[in-house]
């Protein structure tokens, strides 16, 4: 079976520091994986390498059977935009826009007409439970609501995979559970694979597999 997203022999260096080395990881369509490990172990670097955001010193990244790492920057960005969704610790939503406008943004960049994009954005915001504040800006909603909007934005264009880097890192336990419930429910409904970097075992418990990264290497991988 071809993996949806696969790393083969990944190595990432930041100057003289080796952040990742000898990483082999194959993620199946619809799989849900937590990436755990101590601070500075390389777990965020792993997700950024899988997304094609950081340059590789060695190795390959394959997305849906094609090389991602050898594409030009522009084509890699396009592939990422179309087939991946990203969620970060601080949602990275545009503060000047309302929640619904934020969710519409990637859809419109991908060519969806405004009216269709709005309908889809409202639909996904309903699914994550923040439709009632859809027309508010980020500053007028709670951190948990903003993060659920970030989840909606990441999944609105029905990507093949969502990569989330500490998506609940800035939230309390209850808000964190709401964000993870929203993220996993949407990914199950849409058949989207999930990779979530987290230091929180309660977050990892929402996912089916755990990969542990230590000192830039995978110390516990996905069982075959």
């Amino acid at each position, binding site marked *: 079976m071809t993996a949806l997203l696969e790393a083969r022999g990944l190595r990432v260096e930041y100057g003289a520091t080796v952040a990742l080395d000898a990483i082999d990881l194959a993620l199946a369509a619809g799989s849900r994986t937590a990436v755990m490990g101590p601070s500075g172990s390389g777990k965020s670097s792993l997700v950024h390498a899988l997304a094609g955001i950081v340059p590789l010193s060695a190795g390959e990244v394959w997305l849906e059977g094609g090389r991602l790492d050898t594409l030009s920057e522009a084509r890699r960005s396009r592939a990422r935009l179309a087939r991946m969704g990203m969620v970060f610790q601080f949602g990275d939503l545009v503060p000047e826009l309302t929640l619904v406008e934020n969710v519409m943004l990637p859809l419109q960049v991908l060519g969806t007409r405004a009216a269709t994009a709005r309908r889809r954005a409202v639909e996904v915001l309903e699914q994550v439970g923040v439709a009632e504040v859809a027309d508010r800006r980020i500053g007028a909603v709670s951190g948990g609501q903003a993060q659920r909007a970030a989840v909606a934005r990441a999944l609105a264009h029905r990507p093949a995979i969502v990569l989330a880097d500490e998506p609940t890192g800035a939230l309390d336990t209850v808000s964190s559970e709401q964000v993870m419930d929203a993220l996993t429910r949407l990914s199950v409904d849409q058949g989207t694979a999930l990779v979530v970097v987290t230091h929180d075992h309660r977050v*990892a*418990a929402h996912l089916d597999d755990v990969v542990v990264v230590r000192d830039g290497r995978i110390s*516990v991988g996905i069982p075959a």
Partner: protein
Amino acid sequence: MSTSLTLLALLEREPAHGYTLKHRYDALFARTRPLAFGQVYAALNRFDKHGWAEVTGVEIADGPERKRYRITPDGVEAVTGWVYAAEAPSEFSSSSLFARVSVALLSGRSAAEVLDSQRALHLARMRELTAERRTADAAATLAITYELAHLDADLRWIEEAGSRLEPAADALAKAVR
């Protein structure tokens, strides 16, 4: 059971009399509540009966005779089986995990493997509870989150221990010297 097997594991390092074994155990695992001598001698008799340890000599000094015990290959196998056997969370006690990790460090077994297998079992239980929580009423949610919080606390210790194995192995080796 874990007290007996921890004593057996201490015997694995080198043959010892019951008296020495008790003091080694107390120094490592029973700082606030020392082990009774009777418990140590009962354990040594059981080891003898199971073929896990054997008497290598009897010394008669001023007091009573002192038997010196050494572990047998079957005893080593018993320790290995215990150290690597992850325990179901419902039967879990954190002191048992601490003891298994310490014994792994003392004996050159893989403490990281002990932690990894326990992490996997704890996370599996947390997944079950997380799935249950989605449809639970408020009372059931309280019970579920109570168990989740305790599993989470154990897992935090597992992660912290994982980052301290090397210095801990050195300190434990010094403590039993």
